[in-house]
């Protein structure tokens, strides 16, 4: 079928009246720039006996299409994000490890050897002059490739997260949002976690040490990377982390249950963090004496 043909036909074209599966698939995949008088055309084409019959067929196919598409998207998107963010972390870790190896090896051969992934990238550009160099430069290239793939995955995560979890992504930033989804095992499980759990996601070791009575309770897990926590004075970080976690938990629930973007949440959070920070400064002297206030 030509592109032109696809654009001018309704969902029922080439579909049998009682083939709900085929109809559903056409509803999901078809497209047309301009609508048309589909009920009349469907009757004329012999697809349906009359308009009532047409609407009945459309209803059944549409219900099926929407049910399948929703289930697929729900299953798919957040889990793809989980895989992507985990792969990104794996790649970054391996690239750093290998970059260390490259640096150590290069240090034994070149007086100007540097360190890190940047140096591996630099080395990867060189023309090897000996069999040993050949191996070293090849290792550097593979290291650079891994780092490139990690960067690609990061852009993918930054692009996809706002689609899967718009409020969470706006509030936490796409990468941290994806990490939270990954740590929870999916958007559905994140949406069901109390904010106290969200607060310490990624600090499981510290949390279990605390539960065994060997350590103080952790104030924050992976949300520590958020500017609202890291950028707050250490005495107030517990408050900031608790407040942030509370709003993130709400954002995750909205994303999971409604999907509607609520920018006012970001604003409320910003105001509350400002108040926490301001309080810390205003009662600077009392802050240490009151240190326990952080734990509430």
């Amino acid at each position, binding site marked *: 079928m030509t592109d032109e043909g696809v654009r001018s*036909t*309704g*969902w029922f074209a080439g579909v049998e009246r009682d083939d709900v599966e085929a109809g559903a698939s*056409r*509803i*999901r995949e*078809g*497209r*047309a*720039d*301009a*609508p*048309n*008088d*589909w*009920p009349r055309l469907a009757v004329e084409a012999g697809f349906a006996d009359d308009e009532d019959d047409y*609407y*009945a067929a*459309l*209803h059944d196919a*549409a*219900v099926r*299409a*929407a*049910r399948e*598409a*929703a*289930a697929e*998207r*729900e299953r798919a*998107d957040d889990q793809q994000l989980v895989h992507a963010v985990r792969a990104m972390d794996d790649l970054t870790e391996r690239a750093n490890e290998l970059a260390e190896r490259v640096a150590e090896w290069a240090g034994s051969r070149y007086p100007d050897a540097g360190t890190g992934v940047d140096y591996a990238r630099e080395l990867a550009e060189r023309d090897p002059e000996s069999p040993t160099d050949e191996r070293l430069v090849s290792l550097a290239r593979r290291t650079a490739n891994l780092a490139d793939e990690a960067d690609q995955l990061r852009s993918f995560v930054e692009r996809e997260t706002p689609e899967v979890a718009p409020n969470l992504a706006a509030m936490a930033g796409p990468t941290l949002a994806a990490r939270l989804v990954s740590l929870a095992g999916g958007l559905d499980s994140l949406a069901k976690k109390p904010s106290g759990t969200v607060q310490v996601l990624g600090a499981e070791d510290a949390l279990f040490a605390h539960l065994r009575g060997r350590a103080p309770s952790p104030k924050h897990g992976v949300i520590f990377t958020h500017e609202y926590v890291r950028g707050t004075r250490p005495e107030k970080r517990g408050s900031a982390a608790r407040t942030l976690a509370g709003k993130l938990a709400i954002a995750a629930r909205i994303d*999971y*249950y*409604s*999907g*509607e*973007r*609520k*920018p*006012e949440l*970001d*604003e409320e959070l910003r105001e509350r963090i400002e108040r926490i920070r301001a309080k810390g400064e205003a009662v600077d002297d009392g802050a240490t004496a009151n240190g326990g206030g952080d734990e509430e």
Partner: protein
Amino acid sequence: MTNQLPNGVTRRTFDGSERLATRGTPVYGEPTDGDWRVWDAGRSKLGAMLENDLDLGLSGGETVLYLGAASGTTVSHVADFAGPTYAVEFAPRPVRDLVGVAAGRENLIPLLKDARKPETYGHVVEANVDAIVQDVATQGQARVAVENRRFLGDDGRLLAAIKARSEDVTREPEAVFEDALDDLREAYEILDTGRLEPYHDDHLGVVARPR
């Protein structure tokens, strides 16, 4: 003067107060009286537009394209009094509920589609619908209405709820509404507007017809 309610919508007394009601299967735990169930304006922008007496130009039995159907709260009431009702919603989780609502309503056609991309449902939604009801909480709400103009008959109505916070939380709602109305005028003539308080904060109800 009070505008006429569409056929199939009535005011009834529930627990001592006058509420809007339609006739159909209950959907979200709303109070019922026989076949009638309360249409809660606090949970429905279109309900609030009726309560606030905007002239929607609906008489009942219309073919409707509903953009931003969410879990189907409002669209279930629309399907109670309208004819074929196409319900577009893009988020998968609410569509699961919407499908449940549609399963018991033969004239409700759920579509998991992005209202910003009408070409993805142009092969399903018919031309010349009588009304487009729009409640999409995304940036560029006026743009969505303009893009979907292609479905509306020349004497049809656009009934839109514009949410100020979806466009820009930091600006004054009135300024946001002015911009949105300007954008709408590209494809529509504005017939009536009204704020949706006390039911919904910082929302503007808009009734328009194609230019």
